[in-house]
């Protein structure tokens, strides 16, 4: 181990830096999420046309959730293949469930 200490230290510095970078990115993500939220709320308060607002609200929500998953929960990192698979599986079932309960319950 002894002769490796140096390279370990270098590596440590490298990781530290990488983490710092990442943290910066996450703060930016957070700022964007706040902005999205504000946009969503103001759009609703502004009483715009329903057909226009609802799709945008949805897109904003989905982007926000993607931010959470990929940046805050690190799903973009290596080693998250299985988690992604299962989250997408869950999302697919979730989508079908919501769709059904929306359209196949009242007639």
């Amino acid at each position: 181990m002894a002769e490796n200490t140096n390279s370990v230290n270098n590596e440590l510095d490298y990781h530290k830096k990488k983490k710092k970078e990442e943290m910066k990115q996450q703060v930016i993500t957070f700022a964007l999420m706040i902005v999205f939220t504000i946009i969503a709320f103001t759009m609703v308060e502004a009483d715009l046309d329903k057909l226009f607002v609802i799709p945008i609200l949805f897109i904003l929500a989905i982007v926000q959730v993607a931010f959470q998953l990929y940046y805050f929960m690190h799903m973009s990192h290596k080693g998250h293949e299985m988690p992604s698979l299962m989250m997408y599986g869950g999302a697919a079932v979730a989508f079908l469930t919501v769709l059904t309960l929306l359209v196949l319950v009242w007639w």
Partner: protein
Amino acid sequence: MSSHEDVLNPKVMPEEPEKATLEGKNKFLGFWFFLGGETVLFASLFGTYLALKGSTMDDNTSQNLFELPLVFIMTMLLLTSSLTSVYAMYHMKNNDFGKMQLWLGITVVLGLAFLGCELYEFYHYIHHYEFTFRSSAFGSAFYTLVGFHGGHVLFGLLWIVTLMVRNAKRGLNLYNAPKFYIASLYWHFIDVVWVFIFTVVYLMGVI
């Protein structure tokens, strides 16, 4: 086999302490899968809510009830708490236990504030509008969906506090790092659900 209580040495700390041991890897994966299941759980609740959204029996419709400013505050609280828990994990990876605890503490405070707002909201609906769990199918669906989320917040808070108290004296190690990590995953997931709640329930409810 690596589950002796080997305290993290900052000099030789693995890059991902939460996945450094087999137990950690298992916890990490298992918890993600659990979240996959939770996705379906909340989808079922959202679907039910959407199906019953119009089933109001009186004037207590979503348009008449919901007040966006409060919801906005709640959203900000929860979003911010998500960032603070990211900070906590950042310090965990840097093996800075004190700072991690600090940020987790802030997360807990924000979470509590959120819960307080929610309780106030429910109280308000019940006492000012007589809008209850039993007054219409819309009421049942609303309280169940939002309440389930609130229950998750409460559970998350208890969990994080337990971890903080339990490990306050001994600091970070490879045994508890995964525990902290998955608790923070859970916290983020709560936020994910909330994003849909404020969009689907509140914003679309007042349009």
